[in-house]
């Protein structure tokens, strides 16, 4: 079996500026933050980011890496508004394709199933249509039995991506990924909707002997690389391995970006984790 393990730097070396990158997780939950931090250290720029947005979007926006964002929201969950995303939007820093949460999901399904679009009712009548003049509608070829109406839907285009980054609890060297928390979010779809998927994990395992079958979310055929990054979702939640680091998230949300970056993002992932630990120790 191919050993697909690599480092965060290996992942970044396979990406290019101007690529479309999908980022898994949801809000401030199970985000592949170690890979995002590797992106922040790189020269990559002008990215199109596709995400149920959290601090991944906030940090990439603060670092000026985003040319275009595809999202339904950006939030830190316990802190509803992401400060760096807000600042970037208010200064017109990047282009936005703002769609609804369900439209976004069907865009992933369309991409994973190699369909150009999927018809959805969501979006009709809302300003999602005004701010995305490229969105088209499609009329059902079937009449509704009760009303005789042929309903018009939004033709949600496939959200196809050059690469996807997701974070799971466990993975093996060939790219099978396991989540142990309550929600898979859409990480399997992100992997299937991308040309290449990179899966970071809390811990590499040799086998999944005792796994509950449904936890084996990501299958190796959709995965290009596997990265072991303990605490790699920090400061987002990655239960049951770790909860969201709420005090640290508060610090992130209240510290000017240059100051935060200087203190925590000056070095590699190991340096980041040590700096976080040192900050927690100082607070004691």
């Amino acid at each position: 079996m191919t050993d697909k393990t690599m480092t965060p730097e290996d992942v970044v070396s396979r990406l290019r500026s101007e690529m479309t990158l999908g980022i898994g997780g949801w809000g401030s939950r199970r985000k592949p933050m170690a890979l995002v931090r590797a992106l922040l250290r790189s020269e990559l720029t002008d990215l199109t980011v596709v995400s149920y947005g959290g601090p991944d979007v906030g940090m990439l926006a603060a670092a000026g890496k985003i040319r275009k964002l595809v999202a339904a929201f950006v939030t830190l969950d316990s802190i509803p508004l992401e400060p760096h995303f807000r600042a970037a939007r208010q200064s017109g820093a990047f282009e936005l394709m703002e769609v609804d949460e369900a439209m976004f999901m069907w865009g992933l399904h369309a991409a994973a199933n190699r369909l150009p679009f999927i018809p959805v009712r969501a979006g009709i009548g809302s300003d999602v249509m005004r701010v995305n003049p490229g969105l088209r509608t499609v009329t059902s070829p079937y009449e509704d039995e009760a009303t005789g109406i042929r309903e018009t839907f939004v033709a949600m285009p496939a959200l196809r991506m050059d690469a996807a980054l997701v974070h799971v609890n466990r993975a093996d060297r060939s790219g099978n990924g396991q989540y142990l928390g309550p929600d898979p979010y859409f990480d399997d779809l992100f992997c299937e909707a991308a040309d290449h998927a990179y899966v970071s994990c809390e811990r590499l395992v040799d086998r999944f002997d005792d796994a509950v079958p449904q936890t084996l979310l990501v299958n190796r055929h959709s995965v290009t690389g596997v990265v072991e990054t303990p605490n790699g979702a920090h400061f987002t939640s990655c239960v049951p391995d770790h909860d969201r680091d709420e005090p640290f998230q508060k610090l992130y949300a209240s510290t000017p970006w240059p100051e935060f970056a200087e203190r925590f993002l000056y070095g590699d992932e190991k340096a980041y984790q040590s700096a976080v630990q040192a900050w927690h120790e100082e607070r004691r």
Partner: protein
Amino acid sequence: MSPATNTVTRTPLLPPTRAEYCVIACAEAWRDNGEVLASPMGAVPSVGARLARRTFAPELLLTDGEAMLVGPDGSPEGWLPYRRHLTMVTGGRRHVMMGASQIDRFGNQNISCIGDWERPTRQLLGVRGAPVNTLNNPTSYWIPRHSTRVFVEKVDMVCGVGYDRVAEHPGAARFHRIPRVVSDLGVFDFATPDHSMRLASLHPGVTVEEVREATGFELTIPDEVPSTREPSPAELELIREVIDPQGLRDREVKG
């Protein structure tokens, strides 16, 4: 404990607070909804949904805020990750109560941004699930601070679709319904010929004039405006001692 002991030891209940009338007004949104998911956003609607579940609407489904469906005591009864939650929405077996940074006379709602969308003066959450919610399952709203900044003539970005906008799309309109809007001043609905907003009840202590002054558009006001109903003593005890002993409701609504 015998009923007699109960009567002797119980201290008299303090009268309901404004926040508690709001809880009742939110809970009532889910009355007679059947076996659907109650999705409350905000502290007062959450207390309201749990009150409804424990009293007059035991068939309601509730989540733990993550991916589990739970009973009143928090014990799991089902699994509802986001992908299945979204199917619950499009299948229509859900009644959500969302917030609104802006809402207009026809129930168009905005939680995305204030100002010009291209470069907003204040970026908020984004459209989130408001477009899918409003076209697929009943969507009510909760507004903890009723003011002319929220109740506006025209919203800056239509996220949740209102009655005037959906009327232009007859096919998409068939599952559209905004049962009620609850604010700290009263309850509102759209039971008017043109589906514009109407004052349905006032919370005790609030005047029609107060509501008019805090609303940025012409409201339909009936000749006789009822009061939001009183919580029963049993409901007050549930709210205060079982569902929300930390008083999260009072942080959302003062007084």
